[in-house]
């Protein structure tokens, strides 16, 4: 009797070992399915970026040096580029918050059958090439463009004013391109807020304004911060729109990197600037991650 029991026990233990082994093998096979994707990302992103990181520490004499980073601190031109980048990113984010919050609120409170239609207003620009949209703004904002014509007709200003190839044009174009990135996660967060919460607040005697600020707004903040963060981080490294609408007057980090490569072919300096941009991006994401908890909203696209 006791002998049979111990044999069964042994068999069971053996079985478990075999099963566990099988599961491990299966897990590894499954992980193996992701290797082609890992390879592509490694060839295109990880290895080249690592390479640039290395190049940024190689001086003009081919030895290890910090000269590229030192220049960034010493030269005034670099400080100006960083200031412009920060300024443009911050202002664009603020404009997007001001325009995006009411829009997301409006969309989140539409009756179901209208949502799809009005959502198109956000999704359509999102799916349209940013080059096309930048071009459209170039045409709209030019001296003889639609906006100047319209403003003069209704008497806002008398002679055409310069709206493009400067900071104004850059900000208008950037805000237009970034707005959907703020609205989509914010809309997602607002959709998750229970309408009963607002009901309860007003039931307990809060005025509509008070229940909005004390109940609704705090619940929507996670979506707002996630959206603002995506916008800010995307702005930091933006190239096309400032290059076209800024007309050479708005020099951001990405513009500076291409200029260095185009005119000086200095890989060390360009890499160092790129590394700083990457660290700034990761830093912003990390800091924000410490203060706010994010779910998939951060990467919720489309």
């Amino acid at each position, binding site marked *: 009797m006791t002998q049979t029991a111990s044999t069964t026990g042994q068999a069971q233990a053996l079985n478990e070992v075999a099963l566990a082994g099988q599961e491990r093998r299966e*897990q*590894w096979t*499954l992980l*193996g399915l*992701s290797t082609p*994707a*890992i390879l*592509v*990302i490694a*060839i*295109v992103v990880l290895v*080249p*970026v690592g*390479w*640039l990181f290395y190049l940024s520490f190689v001086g003009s004499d081919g030895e290890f040096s910090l000269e590229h980073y030192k220049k960034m601190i010493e030269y005034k031109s670099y400080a100006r580029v960083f200031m412009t980048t920060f300024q443009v990113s911050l202002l664009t984010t603020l404009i997007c918050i001001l*325009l995006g919050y009411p829009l997301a*609120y409006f*969309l989140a409170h539409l009756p179901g059958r209208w949502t799809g239609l*009005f959502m*198109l207003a*956000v*999704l*359509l*620009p999102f*799916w*349209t*090439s*940013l*080059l*096309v949209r930048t*071009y*459209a703004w*170039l*045409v*709209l904002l*030019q001296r*003889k463009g*639609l906006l100047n014509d319209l403003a003069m007709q209704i008497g806002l200003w008398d002679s055409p004013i310069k709206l493009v190839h400067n900071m104004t044009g850059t900000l208008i174009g950037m805000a*237009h391109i970034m707005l959907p990135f703020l609205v989509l996660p914010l809309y997602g967060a607002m959709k998750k807020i229970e309408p*009963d919460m*607002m*009901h309860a*607040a*007003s039931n307990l005697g*809060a005025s*509509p304004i008070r229940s*909005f600020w004390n109940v609704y707004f705090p619940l929507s903040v996670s979506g707002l911060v996630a959206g603002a963060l995506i916008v800010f981080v995307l702005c*930091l*490294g933006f*190239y*096309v729109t400032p290059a*076209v609408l800024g007309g050479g007057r708005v020099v951001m980090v*990405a513009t500076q990197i291409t200029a260095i490569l185009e005119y000086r072919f200095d*890989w060390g300096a360009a890499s160092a600037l*790129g590394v700083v*941009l*990457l660290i700034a*991006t990761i830093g912003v994401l990390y800091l924000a991650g410490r203060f706010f908890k994010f779910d*998939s909203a951060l990467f919720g696209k*489309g």
Partner: protein
Amino acid sequence: MSWWTQPATQTQITHGDRFWLYVTAAIIMLLLVIPTFIVVPMSFSDSQYLAFPPETWSVRWYEEYFGSRKWMRATVTSVKIGTLTTLVATPLGTMAAYALFVSGHRAARAIFMLLITPMIVPVILIAIGAFYAFGRMGLNNSITGLVLAHTAMATPLVMILITAALRSYDLNQERVARSLGASRVKAFFMVTLPQIKFSVVTAALLSFLTSFDEVIISIFISGGSNATLTKHMFAALRDFIDPTIAAISTIMVAVSTVLLLTTQFIGSKKS
């Protein structure tokens, strides 16, 4: 009681009380949509100077576009690269997303984070990095290099869409199929895939657009006879306002509108 005095929310705010919200939202939506479509009437203008509304109408900029060898060659390149990117990125991303979702291995989360780095690293850095590394590998100005780079950009999007689809799908169905004797591969293709196929189609469309609209990497690593449409467009935008761009833009807007409406249609059928 008219619509104006009806309560709009749980807090008894009436539609009239928040009419300002509707006006504000309408203005913002117009600001979002108008610049997307303004290129359409402009592309049919006869004038060099893009006056609005156009004084005389013509299709000369379309003739210019379709008659130009440079633009036609770039268009063919962009379509080719977009198609190849879709064909590579969709299976690659789906495979990786499925593997990481079902494996339950400790490393799965870390690998997922690794695979979405192209969304976090600034594109300009990816562009110059690829330009440098591809230069060493002889991949600059080649179709292979462009497809590789665009696949890296599209794969994270595919993974995010497929992972979201798998989350709302009950994996037990696949277990049932396997306990009834189907292999894992068979169970995936016969049970799981048919149920996430709408997300796979959306992911494929988005991959195509990601590649077709991509500018910065293309500026750096494409060139010669393999220059993309966006590379030529960007060069034309920086130099002067060529109305041919309006015609090309109109075609691009049409393409993305059709693709977007397709996904919306798929989405409404799904739910």
